[in-house]
């Protein structure tokens, strides 16, 4: 089984979010970039398939040269090889088009993406990729096994889950549950050393439309201070929620 794991390079979840150039660009100053958490759950599951079922795992990212350390980290975790499509990802459709080319030329059986990236939160790349390739697609995927050419999966739905079966080739929009938090791997020294010699191919992008563009960013308005209520005066809290906030 050939697995492609699509990786977004995103600010660490604890990052302070600021903007520069008249609020048109994200301020990367002092920001640590990581593998998008939803993608990392998928990558770790892919490594499980590699170890248990002899799958090969390729990781791919659409991004500039500055994203290579993130791909090297994925290699250090255990991916066999990496691909970087050399383009700045500004629109979900553009990214999906690039990934579609990679999938077509690599004949992958299983493509694992995160259900959304934690920077733009667009949540559209996996589904658009499935739409472009006409592959089966399971979003918000929390469990995945593969037996021959059949995949069994769970999808999180509002208030429960669906048990799903689909044949390969398949695209997954993954999230926590594919593996548990405790199963995530921190690259060890051997992994980091090996990753240096693994193949990282750089591809030039294909022509594709940018259907959308982010014109400007804004930070939320500052919040007014919390109103503290004494633990001995719970009636006051009820009064505030009823008469002031009007939520009960």
């Amino acid at each position: 089984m050939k697995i492609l794991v699509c990786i977004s390079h995103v600010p660490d979840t604890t990052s302070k979010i600021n903007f520069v150039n008249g609020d048109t660009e994200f301020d990367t100053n002092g920001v640590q970039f990581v593998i998008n958490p939803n993608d990392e759950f998928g990558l770790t599951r892919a490594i499980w398939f590699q170890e248990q079922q002899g799958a090969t795992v390729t990781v791919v990212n659409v991004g500039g040269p500055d994203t290579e350390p993130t791909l090297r980290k994925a290699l250090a975790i255990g991916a066999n090889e990496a691909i970087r499509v050399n383009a700045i990802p500004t629109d979900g459709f553009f990214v999906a088009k690039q990934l579609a080319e990679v999938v077509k030329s690599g004949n992958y059986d299983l493509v694992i993406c995160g259900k959304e990236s934690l920077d733009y939160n667009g949540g559209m790349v996996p589904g658009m990729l499935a739409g472009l390739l006409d592959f089966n697609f399971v979003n918000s995927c929390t469990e995945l096994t593969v037996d021959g050419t059949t995949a069994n999966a769970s999808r999180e739905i509002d208030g429960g889950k669906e048990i799903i079966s689909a044949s390969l080739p398949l695209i997954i929009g993954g999230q926590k549950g594919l593996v548990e938090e405790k199963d995530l791997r921190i690259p060890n020294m051997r992994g980091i050393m090996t990753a240096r010699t693994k193949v990282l191919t750089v591809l030039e992008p294909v022509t594709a439309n940018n259907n959308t563009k982010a014109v400007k960013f804004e930070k939320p308005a500052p919040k007014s201070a919390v109103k503290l209520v004494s633990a001995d005066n719970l009636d006051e809290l009820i009064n505030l929620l009823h008469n002031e906030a009007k939520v009960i």
Partner: protein
Amino acid sequence: MSLLIYAESSPDASGGKFKKVAFELASYAKKVAETLGTTVTAVTVNAGDVSELSKYGVDKVLKVTNEKLVNFSAKAFADVIKQAAQKESAKIILLSSTTDSLYLAPFVAVGLEAGFASNVVGLPLSTLPFQVKRTAFSNKAFNVTEISTDVKVLSLAKNSYGIFENKAAAAAEDFAPSLNDSDFNVKVESVEKASGKVTIADADVVVSGGRGLKGPENWGLIENLATVLGAATACSKPVSDLGWRPHSEHVGQTGKPVATNLYIAVGISGAIQHIAGINSSKVKVVINADAEAPFFKVADYGIVGDAFDILPRLTEKLAAFKVQNA
């Protein structure tokens, strides 16, 4: 040239009830349609009483009834919406932000060669060029997105606009889109769903517990408060990682987003990732023994104190309040 919305209903072979987000979406669509001088058409799938939509400004309903569509299939539902959009020559397609709508949205966008913006909050900032505001960086910021394609797909963030009545005379007509067998290649084998429980997605109020509750055996305190408020229960990431509560209750940046009217956090310190996930909630209440907990910086109301002392008393008082105000 009308605007098309997909009005989502709960799955039910004998005619599902509309979700609240469908009414919010209709209210929003009506306002956008007024700006553009056009009308609102809704497409429904196996919904019951579609006349309800007219209360919120829907002018026309394309009613799809098909037993193959009782179970959700993203591809098939996207096909339905795509064909409805083509029939109406709709240039703007509006969807909700439920798990199902976000699943099908990219298929609709690819199928119609449309630009797609998700998590949209507020009315379009301009229509020429077409610009909308959306949340990004896990609710830590907004971005203004410009869509340059002729056809546009938007998904509206839950609870970001509100529900407004606006009576129209909705004409309903049956609509039978053509579906392919390949639309059903992803098969739903079974659905596991707790019945009778308020889900985080549907709830107006969410009561959430953290490590401050000390163990799963104390969750009765959270559940009792939730029951009185008709609320859904949720938890912080450490609590789900420890296995005290199921993953489906984990809210935060890598868990479920919460955009509710009232969010009550008990024994949750308020890590930046947790706050990101719940920040779209309108009113936030924190109960925590540690007055220095970061949650107090983002909450509207707070009580410094012992949850084990406060929760039973608060639950009792709220129960009495509810009886009085019933």
